[in-house]
Structure formats: C-alpha cells, structure tokens
C-alpha cells in the first residue's frame, strides 16, 4: 500500500556469511565501483539504498553482528533475497553457510526467500587451489531454492571485489529477478550509475574521491 512511497525500499536484500569473507567489500564494490582495502571490520554502515529504476533497494550489511554468532532476527525481517557469501579459498566458510546462516534465513526472512550463493575472492584462487568447487556451490544453490527451474542458471555467483568480476551481475540479477525493469528504465539506471561513479552526491562533487571511471571496464558484464 505504501510501496510507492519514495524512500520506502521496495526490496530488501541482506548479505550473510562468516566474518571476513568480504561481505562489505562486495557491497561497497557494487555501490562505489571500487575496492576499498580498508581492513577494519564493518563499522558505521547499516544499509545502503540503491536506486533501481523507479525502485529503491535496501542492501543491508551485518554490522559485524555475525562475528560471534549473534545476528538478530531484525536483520532478516522482510527480506526477500539473501546473499549467502563464502570465501572460495576457505572451505569452512562454505560449510558454515548451511550450518549457521541458513537457519536464520529460514526462520526470519519472508517465505520463499531467494537465496543466492556467492563465492567471494575468486581473484585469489586458481582452479588448482580453490577449496570449494563450483559444482558443490551450485548444488547448494539449487538445493536451497527448490522451486528454481533447472533450466535457469543457478543462483550462484563467483565474485571478486578487487576486480569487480560478477559484482554488478550479481546484484542486477537479484534486482531484475524481483523488479524487472523496462529497457528505458535500464538505460536510465545505467546513466545514473555512471554518474554515481563520478561521485556526484547531492549535486556536489566530492573532491576527495579519486576518479574511478577507469575501473568501470572490468565489470561491464551486463
């Protein structure tokens, strides 16, 4: 009923996963178009609003509450899409998804929540030394989304927040799944995205931000 109101998010996306698998970097990469090597754990960012055509999407970050297994139900409320992120180079982070985070998703998100499995830090592994195989992760992605049609590509992405690989594709896949845009809306969106990358905020230019336009090329997956 209030869905059309401007800053009510039309979609809430959460990201879950072990401490230090790169959840915040992933979101920041998408939002800012750049990798932030800051090593501090998530502080100060509760969620991000992203314009998607006429819609608002809220992307929530854990605020570090997952670190000691203390994520709150609040975090998952009203969520239609959950990104379960793990570190491809650490098998344990993958195993923890099912054990630790899935119960949260299953008890507190909206019913039939889309669960997207994301392997982070794909840039850091070679096929030879990766610890979680693509097939394993895909199998999980399919299993967790039982209604997912087999002919569709599975909700699984391998991303790198450093190179930007698959980052946009991941988020745009989720948004498009829930809030498909018309062609013209998509163009608008892309336009807007470009502007954001030049750090135009509230109509002012942030002199402190470095130019990031050059980085754009590596994530033009759509």
């Amino acid at each position: 009923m209030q869905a059309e109101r401007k800053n009510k998010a039309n979609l809430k996306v959460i990201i879950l996963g072990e401490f230090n698998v790169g959840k915040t970097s992933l979101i920041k990469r998408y939002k800012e178009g750049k990798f932030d090597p800051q090593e501090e754990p998530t502080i100060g960012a509760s969620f991000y609003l992203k314009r998607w055509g006429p819609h608002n999407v809220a992307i929530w970050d854990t605020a570090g509450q997952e670190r000691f297994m203390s994520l709150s139900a609040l975090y998952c409320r009203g969520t239609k899409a959950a990104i379960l992120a793990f570190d491809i180079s650490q098998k344990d982070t993958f195993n923890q998804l099912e054990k630790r985070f899935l119960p949260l998703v299953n008890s507190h998100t909206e019913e039939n929540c889309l669960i997207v499995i994301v392997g982070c830090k794909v840039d850091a592994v070679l096929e030879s030394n990766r610890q979680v195989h693509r097939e394993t992760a895909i199998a999980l992605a399919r299993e967790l989304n039982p209604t997912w049609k087999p002919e569709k590509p599975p909700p699984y992405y391998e991303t790198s927040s450093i190179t930007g690989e698959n980052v946009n594709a991941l988020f745009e896949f989720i948004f498009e799944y829930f809030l498909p845009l018309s062609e013209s809306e998509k163009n608008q969106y892309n336009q807007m995205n470009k502007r954001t990358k030049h750090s135009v905020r509230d109509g002012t230019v942030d002199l402190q931000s470095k130019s990031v336009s050059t980085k754009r090329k590596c994530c033009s997956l759509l």
Partner: protein
Amino acid sequence: MADNLPTEFDAIVVGTGMTECILAAALARIGKNVLHIDRNDHYGGDWASFNMDSMRRWIANHRGEECPPSVMEIPEYSSLLHYLSINPKTENEEAAEEKEKPSPASLLLEGELLVEARMESSTITNVVEKIFVREKSEVEVSKEPSESEQQGTADTQQSTETEQKGVTNAQQTTASASKTHTNEDEQEPSVESVIAEALACTEEEMKEEKEEEDENKSESAMDEAIMCTPSYDTVPTGADAQDTHIMNSTSETLEPQPTADADARVGTEEKPATEPSSQSPLCDAQSVDDDSESTAPVADADAGAITDADTKSAAGSITDTAEAAAAVANAAASSPAQADAAAAAAEWTMERIMKRWRRFNLDLEPKLLFSRGSLVELLVSSNIARYAEFKILTQVLTLLDGRLERVPCSRADVFSSKKVSVIEKRMLMKFIQFCLGYENTPAEYAGFEDRPFSEFLMSRKLTPNLRHFVLHSIAMVTEDCPTERALGETRRFLQSLGRFGNSPFLWPMYGSGELPQCFCRLCAVFGGIYCLRRMPQCVVIDAASNRCKAIVCNENQRISCDWLIMEASYAPEQYVPRPETRRSISRAILITDGALLKEKQEQLTLMSLPVGMPGRSPVRLLELGPSTMACPRDLRIVHLTCVGGGDAQLDLAPTIDRLFAVAEPPSEAERAAPPGESGERETIGGAAATEAERAGPPGGSDEQETTGGVAAMEAELLAPPGGSGEREAASGAVAAEDRGETDDGKPKLLWSLFFNCQDTTDELAVSEDCPDNVVVCGGPDWTLDFEHSVQEAKDLFRRICPDEEFLPRAPDPDEIVFGDYENPAPTDGFRELATDAESRNNNGGGPTPAADDDRTPAPAAVAPPVDVTHGEMGTHQPDNGGGGFYEQESAVAKDNSSRPSTEEEQD
C-alpha cells in the same frame, strides 16, 4: 569459529532488554567501545518476541523440561534443511572448549576479588501452556494449503516412513483425491454432481486400498492408517493411540471383524448412506460428512460429533477409505451455501499451527508506543526508526454493559459514535479540551487532586457512559486513581492522538521485541560487539578501590571494562538484593480463531478491562492480527497483561472466559488421540455447539438440538440407534449453557500461555557495596509503553557520560560516504555528518531529498501515514499537539472505519 572476544572495552552491557539496548546504542554512538552480551540465544531477554517454534522451546526451557527439537530439525520441515541444526555450536565443539577453560580465580590479578554474578534468571515463573485443539486432524483439507504445502506433507511422510513403503502411495493418492475436490470447489458444481464424482473417487480409493490390503494384510493396513496421519510430532505416540483406537472402535461397532476387512466393508456401506443425504438441502455438507464418519471403521458417533465441529475437514476418518470419504464431504461443502462455512471452519490443530510456526511473533512483553511518547521521539531523533516499521493501533475497545464497544477517541469518533448522545458529545469534547490543558486551569479540579478520579468525573457531571470511556479506556486507570495523575494519563493519551493517525498508539511490526534489536543494530553499526549465549560468571573487583575492573564470562574469559551495565537479573545478589516481595506481571498469550469484534478490516485493538477488585489494576488486552506479522492468516494473537496477585492463570482466566469461547483443554493423551477418544469430547463438543449456532436454524426435532444445533442433529442422523453421538453433541450444548451465555460470535481459544514476569523495576535498590562503575537497570515493567526504559536509559547514560549527547541522529544511508579519507576514523566523520544533517533538518528540510516527498501533507480525510522517521518532529511539538488534532479533525468525514491502517516507512 569460537573466536575469543576482544578483552578490553569501555563498557560491557549485559542483557539485551530495552534499557540495556538503548544504553548500549547510546554509548557506541558516541564512540565508546561496547561489548553487549546476553545469556540467551535470542535478543531481548524477557522482552523478546518468538515465533511458535522458539516459543515452545522457551516454554519447555522455563518449565525445566527438555527442549523439544526445533521444527527445523524435524524431517517434515526439512526437505531442504535436513542437515541443519539450529544451534550453531555442536556439542563436541562445546565440550572441546570446556576443557581449555581456566578457572576464574586464576584470571585474577593481585588485589582483586571475584563477585559471583547470577547466571540463571529467575524472573519468569508459573509458565503454563494450554492447548485447546487436537494435535492433528487426520486429513488436513483446507482451501489454504498450497500445493507445495501438500507436497511437503507427502514428502514428510516419505521421510518419516522407514518401514512402510507401499503406504506412501496410498497417501499420495488420497492427497491427490482431495486436491481434485478442491478444484471442484472452484467450479461450484451442483451438489449432486459433486457427490457423485466424489463417490466415484471414493470407490477408486477403496479399490486401491483393497489392493494394498491384499498385499499388506490387515495388520499393515492398520499401520497404513496410522502413517497416513501427517505428523510433526513423535510418530510412535500418535500411532499407539490410534492403534488402540482402531481396535476399540472396531470391536465396538462391527462385531468381530478383522480390522482391514472392516474398513473395506464399511466403506462399501457408505454409498447408500450418502445418496439420501444429498437430498436434504439444509445440511448437505454435514450429512455427507456424517457419511464419511460412518465409513470410518469407527462408525461410531463419537467421531461423528467431533467432525461436525469442523464441518469441512472431516477429520473423523482414520483409514484411507475414510479419508477419501472426507474428501467427499469437502467437495460437498463446496455447494454455494456451505462454501463460506467451510472456509471459515477449517479445523485448527496444533499441527496446522506449527506448520505455520514462522509466521508467529509472540511477544513476552508487548508494549505500545505513544505517538508522542519519548520512545518515538528517540527513534526519530536518533534515526533508528528506519530499522523498524510500525502500524497504528486502530481501535480502542471497552466492555460496556457486557458488550464490546468502540471507544470514541478522536473528535470524528466522538461525533460519529452511536453510543454517545448529542449532549454527551458536547460534554465529552469540553472535557477533552479541559484535559489537554488541565495544568493551566488548576481551579477546575481544585480539591480533587488526590481524590479518586471517578469522583472527579462525577463532579464534572459526565454521564456513566462517558465516565466509563474516560476512566477505563482513555486514562486507563483504576477508579481510585488520584485525579491529578489520571488527568496526566488522560492528557498523554489525547496528545498522542492524530500524530500518525486516529489513535495514540503505534505497534511495531513483528512485535515490540523488535525494538531492542533496533538499538542493538545501531550499536553494532557503531562498532559494538555482540555475543549471545555469553554472560558474566563473576565480576572482578579491585579490592582497594571497590571498582569493577573486568568480568569473567561463562567462557572463562576475562574481559576488562571501565563500566559494567547489567540488567537486574544478572547482577550479583550482594549488589542488588532481591526484595521480599516484588510486583509480578501476569501475562497471557492467546491464539484465537478470530477477532473479538468482527469487522471487515483487520483491527489492531487495545482494551482495558477493569477487574472489579479494589486496588487491582485493569487487565490490558491487545489483539493483533496477521497484518502486524503476529500470526498467520485467520488467526489473532491476544496479549493480556496485568499486575496481579502472582499467578497469571488466576488473574487472567476470568477475563479470558468472558471474552472467548474456551473449551476444556484436552489432556496430553487425549489430544494426541484421534477423534472419538473421550478427551476430545469437551473440546470438540463445545466447538460443535458454537459451530452449530453459526450454522443457522437447526432443522431437527429433538430437544437437545436447540443448543447443540446442527451438531446434535447430525449426531442423530449418523449415529447408529442408541449410539453415543447424541450424548456427545449434548455435552457440547451443555458446556455452552453452563457458562450462562452462548459462545456465539466469540472467538475460539486455540492455545494459551500463562506466565508471570517479575517487574524488576519495582524496588530496584542497589546496595551500597555496589561499585560506582557498575550500573544496574530493570527489566520490563508493567506499564503499557516504553517510557520507563527510555527514561532509565537516559538517566544512566547521563551518569556514565555526563557531558555527551544522548543518541544524536545517526546518518541516513545515503549520507554515509565511504571513502578515501586519509583518516577514516568513522566516528568523527559521522558526527560531522550527523550535525550537518541535523542542521538541515532543523531548517525544515528533510534529511535526504527523498524524505521531502514524505512530507506532503496527507489528504484531510485520511490519517497521516505512520512515518516515524520523518514524522512531524519539530513542527508539531507537543504543546499544541493533541489540541491541534482535535481542531483540525473537525473537518474530517465521519467515515473513520475506512481509514487505512497505515504503516510506517522504510527499510
């Protein structure tokens, strides 16, 4: 994995109740390094809200029983979860950690002492759960279950069945049979054709069953019947019960036939019975239903009466044959006349409730927010409001002369209320105007300050109706409440009107247990570290200075702190002595099958019910519907709260009996047993009576039918001569009569939970021994709102950080600029942003461009949306608050019932 916590903090906050959370957030917000822990595995402590699964485990936990496994661990719910455990830690891991623990004493430095903290909370007592529905019905046929749900059931059976292979087939066929009929429902074919088809189907079913029987022999056929009942509970128990039941009933009704044969035979007998019934138009559904009963091996009137209670789901059937017959009944119920009744009467069973476990959000301490209360102001000013969503309470009810009436709150209400005469309207408006500014005209109540409010109301010559409204529903005080205080309460209510809508209260979506978590989130966002299942085992005190230096937590880790903030239930006994007697909050949580006051739109209801005992506070009732995420469709959650004599059940049961149709709860064994067992009688009997009254004029001639209605009639129709059916129905009727009133229209009570919660804010005294840097705060108090917590948190914050700002506004997401700042020191950055945003805000602009759009005034006839974040802060300050509402309301159309229940904002 088992990360050790960091070992140094500015402040350790123990307990995740409201006060602690506000305080934790406030401390983190100004840059303090905060550790926030709780002994439970959930947030909120005694303020928490639970889904049905967690709730039942909480109950078991507080009754000292072994926790039932989470539904997520039960195969039924786990086609995708089968390997999950809800507890993130396995026992092995815990055991491993156990070994490494040093003793607390070994962690002491010189000159330090250990003071033991309270590990166990003892605030919750008298936990009593009552279940008024059966554990399960044999066939869950309702319009609601989606295909996936049915599929789920089938899956379950597959997974539960280890021994019985062939049985699953039978079950699936049954499921598909009933599905077919559901489809027929939609087409609404003539009764005859439905029955004909259904019958055909039954025959098929029977054939299949016979084939199976051939294969499996009679014994396994019996098992089959057992396995066909979907089960989330332990299969063996249910199976046993049914086992015996089948034996009994068969031997009772059909002479000495072996079971399986009996099934088949009775099944065949069904046909002739069905046909005549289709000709009696009054009770198609019921009579077909009867047939399904008679088909059951039982052929026993007990079952008949029972199934009638839920006209549609035809639960009486025990074997597959009977299930198919039940489908017949269901299909027949689709005749237009019966369709509605069928939809409304889907039997609620514990299984059906538990299947929807995650849609419940049951609050231990439900609290409302006054629209202009301090919590709303705090949520807005701190920008925490964006984490939560709110609904506005839509009606305030009262019980006037035994009838439920809506209390006119706003001017529009007053003028449209039929309960209030023209003269009264004027009187009430005048009184309301006076109350809003009562402090300015002390002469008006001079001499009454400390005298009872009721006397003052008399002196104002208010009519009895108006006195009732003002005293019980607006001021919500007892008759002997001193006038001055009551006027304050009245004003508080009136002032909060109109800020977000036509009632003074807001209710958080998903329950008030969400609010502490909102503050926790802010705390975490500002660097607070969270760890559940962690609590202080001991407090480390420096003997010389008597200051707290650290805690030793239950993982035997020493964590030092400058400040220790503890909820009272954690505080060492020697610091916070337990008073001899302490106020106890009596609580009941009910699940009912409908609203107290039936209306088209879902209502969120508050009611204050005087208990008629001097000195006793009224019982506060809060009714929540699915739109608040409190419960699944077609149910209501009712919270009852009062300050009582110490036993929730004694305190609240009378109120429950007044308002709800309460059957005798069946005992454990009876509940698990299939219909027809004696224990079901009363529950179902009562229900049958209610159902009967709804179903319209009884068509029969027997005297017993007058109250028992359809149920009795049916019992008669289906019962073998002299059968027990009449007795059953009659007992239902009597049960209703005994209560001296009909239960017609009252919502039926399905499940209830009673408990007492100690009001630790009462006489919360800290002993002189308590170190200065140990701060103790109270748990939930008995009041309606959060005022006490907010005030307590503010006071304590001021004690800890006298010169700091209390929860300054946190930046909006869009204001958070990441960046390539050389010095990312987040707190400073934020503070600037916050200040910036504030100044913008004060200039009248919204904090973000988007927010401006929200400020467009709502059309006059519609209540403004509950937009807490960007509420009229700063423009409509309290001084003209409620009064303004009353003035501006004069233009409002009378039609308030159609006002949308608006929800708040955002992310």
